[in-house]
């Protein structure tokens, strides 16, 4: 059992998620992370574009 998993015996940690070996590998795998970064980049662009689209011009003399 890995040290991080021993932590889950602690009552405060009982209801949390435990990352499995695959997730731990994926978090630090350069290829997987490059793909993750590209996906995050795409979503970021969507948010930035949404912000631009939501910007309105309202008359100053309302």
């Amino acid at each position: 059992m890995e040290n991080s998993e021993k932590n889950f015996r602690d009552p405060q940690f009982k209801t949390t998620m435990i990352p499995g070996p695959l997730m731990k590998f994926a978090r630090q795998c350069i290829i997987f992370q490059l793909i993750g970064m590209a996906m995050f980049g795409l979503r970021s662009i969507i948010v930035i574009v949404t912000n631009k689209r939501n910007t309105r011009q309202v008359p100053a003399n309302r």
Partner: protein
Amino acid sequence: MAQIVIMGAGVAGHAAATILGDAIGAEHKIIVVAPNSHWNYIPSNVWVGTGTMKKEEVLFPLRPIYEQVNVDFRQAKAISIHPEGKEESDTPFITVEYVDPDRQGETEEIPYDYLINATGPKLNFAKTPGLGDENGIGEHTVSICSADHATHAHQRLDEMLERARSTKQKVLIGTSDGTCTCQGAAFEYILNVEQKARKMGVRDNVEIKWISNEPYIGDFGMDGLHLGVAGYAISSKLFGESLFAERGIHWITDAHVSKVEEGRLEYELIDGTMHEESFDFAMLIPQFTGVGLKAYDKAGEEITDELFMPNGFMKVDADYTPKSYEEWKAGDWPVTYQNPSYKNIFAAGIAFAPPHPISEPRKSPNGTPITPAPPRTGMPSATIAEAVAHSIISLLRDGESAKLTTASMAEMGALCVASAAVGWKAGQGVSFTVYPIVKDYDKYPGTGRDTLRTFGSIGLYGHWLKTALHYMFIYKAKVKPGWKIIPG
């Protein structure tokens, strides 16, 4: 020629100054008044606080940048606003006191046609007894709110970690007052401190504990969020708690730190019970308030209440009518950041007064408010400043047909990258997008946000991104070629 005065040169003030200077600096006079001679890329202070970066890497002098974009920089502290002028003149002005070594202590009246209040917060260490006083942080704890604070935090952290080689040590990181904001910075710091303790081989001797005013880890003053992860909408509570559990970090939430002494602090929980914790090293974010600007009318009578809310933040076009949590609407939030009484005054960044928190307001049975204040730093701060700058450009160029640019936090998304560990191969970061920042249950009845555009993950690329953002935003802030195409 009009005169535009910007109070403050942080994220919002600097963004507004560079946009205005670049667009209209040749035709109009742009003046920036700020007490600091250097710009600080605050998101990287967390790395200064652990020694990953040096103070010099997060700071650069403002004056040479402003000379490039026709902005007049005055190193001074704004004291008061006189929006109606004075008896002998109708021209509005602000009073400032110089902190520039060449003019130290001199006062000056600076007239304006348009004023942007981007002063940021006052770090109110005095609110928590023992945390500090009116002059700043005290000797019992550290802070990473400024580059100097972070440098000091790094020294104290290294001393504690050296002691941990031979004796058990206890670390407390989080927020102090029950109304604090900026939990994200403390969240990053605790994870980086944990990694540093592991790297030094002393983790078993260091007990690390989180203490915050949030109802749960991951509230972040935004009433929490649901992140789209692996096909699920996972709550930030589960996400945050799991990360802490994996790192062996315990937590205390719903806490208002009421007193700090050497090596111990007292806190009240939302149920009204009082507790105490000991520590060998503590980093606690102070309460943020307005910087304490005063306002006066033409006759010299104080009208501070007309311009500012009691917490010192400036009133803008928000709906400040007191309402219950259930009645809060996205429409309560400001869109143009124009002061309702004086239309030539705007506020941007932390300086504007939010209509209410985003998180549910709570009080202990003793009447102590324990509610995180809404975050207005980083991306929203720069986006608001950009909108205000474009509004002023239109007011100057288009006269009667001028249009104001909107930037409501209820219609705005944000990107956030929180460092969880450093290193090109061992690093980790939590990267997430949130849309909109202020929940809108009318549009998104489920979680209050669009779960397709509220997405998060943790991994090595978060560290790469955080590093890339550091260099990219400093590049932009230095107005180097192509700076305008980098989003704020």
